[in-house]
């Protein structure tokens, strides 16, 4: 069996929940018996500006958790687009939080997907869920893991005592995946 491997970088401001959704999708992959690695940017970088993590999902042991040319980038802010747009593999996809980025596309050999994640999150009453909206849209679009897995993982991570928070995150998953199904999103 040939190695099938997908790499994803998730990037944004510290506090946008970049590492969290990275762990969430890694858990989804694990639950689906896939091989997966999650690697954060660490050290001085984690104390200022942007944070990012790299996720590699494969059908056998991941060779390198570090990827310079990812298949996918989820960019939660403008700086992240600037940092990673040129690094994506040809044929790859840049998923942009269009609420925070209004720039022009620099490449013709990758796909662009725009999600107004902050607006969607604000509508459901919790701007902090923009990260989950982005992840959900990404999963719906790429089918790298199942949306059902994400729902399960989020339920496991957010304890029962925080019912309200869980409800909002479940709503964020729903809205993110619904947005992808809208004709406007192509």
């Amino acid at each position, binding site marked *: 069996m*040939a*190695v099938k491997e997908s790499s994803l970088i998730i990037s944004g401001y510290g506090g946008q929940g970049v590492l969290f959704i990275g*762990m969430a999708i*890694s*858990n989804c992959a*694990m639950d689906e018996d896939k*091989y*997966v*690695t*999650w*690697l*954060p940017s*660490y*050290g*001085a970088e984690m104390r200022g500006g942007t944070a990012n993590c790299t996720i590699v999902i494969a059908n056998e*042991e*991941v*060779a*390198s*958790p*570090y*990827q*310079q040319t990812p298949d996918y980038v989820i960019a939660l802010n403008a700086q992240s687009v600037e940092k990673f747009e040129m690094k994506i593999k040809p044929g790859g996809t840049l998923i942009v939080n269009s609420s925070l980025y209004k720039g022009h596309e620099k490449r013709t050999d990758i796909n662009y997907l725009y999600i107004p994640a902050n607006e969607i999150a604000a509508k459901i009453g919790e701007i902090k869920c923009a990260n989950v909206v982005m992840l959900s849209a990404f999963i719906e679009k790429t089918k790298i893991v199942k949306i059902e897995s994400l729902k399960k993982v989020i339920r496991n991570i957010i304890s029962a005592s925080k019912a309200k928070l869980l409800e909002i995150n479940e709503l964020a998953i729903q809205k993110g995946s619904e947005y992808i199904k809208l004709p406007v999103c192509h």
Partner: protein
Amino acid sequence: MTKTAEKVLLKGNHAIAKAAINAGCQCYFGYPITPQNEIGEFLSVEMPARGRVFLQAESEVAAINMLLGAASTGTKAMTSSSSLAIALMQEGISYIAADNIPAVVVSVMRAGPALGYIFPSQGDYFQTVKGGGNGDYKTLTLAPATVQEMIDYTYKAFYLAQKYRTIVFLLADGLLGQMMEPAVLYDYPYEEIDNSDWALDGAKGRPGRWIGSIHRSEEVLEKKVLELFKKYDIIKQNEIEYKTLYAEDAEILITAFGSVARIAQAAVKQAREAGLKVGLFRPITLWPFPEKELYKFATGKKLILDIEMNMGQMLEDVKMSVSGQAKVEFYGRPAGFYFTPEELLEEIKKQMEGLK
């Protein structure tokens, strides 16, 4: 081994800390340094919760000597650190080795020399395997390549330390420490070793015991060192560990350890798919180095290609082991430049061209 536990997504540093707890580690002493801080942070909560000792030392020098003190009482104990700070521990490491007491040191390498930066690196192979402390001693060194192996070899480190009353290094790097990967945290699988015949616990109903390294006669000092090396011979006979992939019929045999070995493994698979006869030899014990085993596999090969995230350190052991049975080339980068399998495959192809 009883692998009944569930698979969980674990950070490498947390895997070490959790395995240390399962292994029965009673005391942890350490000083903060990236990229291994999660070990200390985790244990600062989990050790006291179990009535065990977590102590943030005032320096790495103090930490290794606290470890020496705890080890002298036969207590399972460990420290963890990185590169330039492991350098500070070398005197204590030499004492622990000379004293024949069990201790575990986790080294999560970062890029040097000197302060360098927190990028992953393999630049401390020499520091660990060849020792930076004084005198004739060896440090048993285990090099994991996955988060699962961080657990497996942390367990083994505690076991071998107790079994041989020796210092054992778990040698990882910033990448293995920081990454998350699914792993199974099973129960500590090894037997407990009785230490009542040597550990310090107060001279009750027996003569006092002295654990020390000073010997005022050449004869006694020589005897002590020879005894130490008799023990090392036994370790060499029993504990050498390595893995191979397509090594038998390969024309080019790659040697790599730790996290680089997992990338090399992918490159080897890609090479095989492309019809290239490439294999991998991965030492897991860096000391004792699998000299005879590598010699055997290297004999008849067209080329041995050693790949490391440094300027060529294990390379010297590889060359010594191969003993002229095959040509040895090196490919490496310092300073945290992580290889991709594709990059390694290119290098393999280039080397193959060169052979024609």
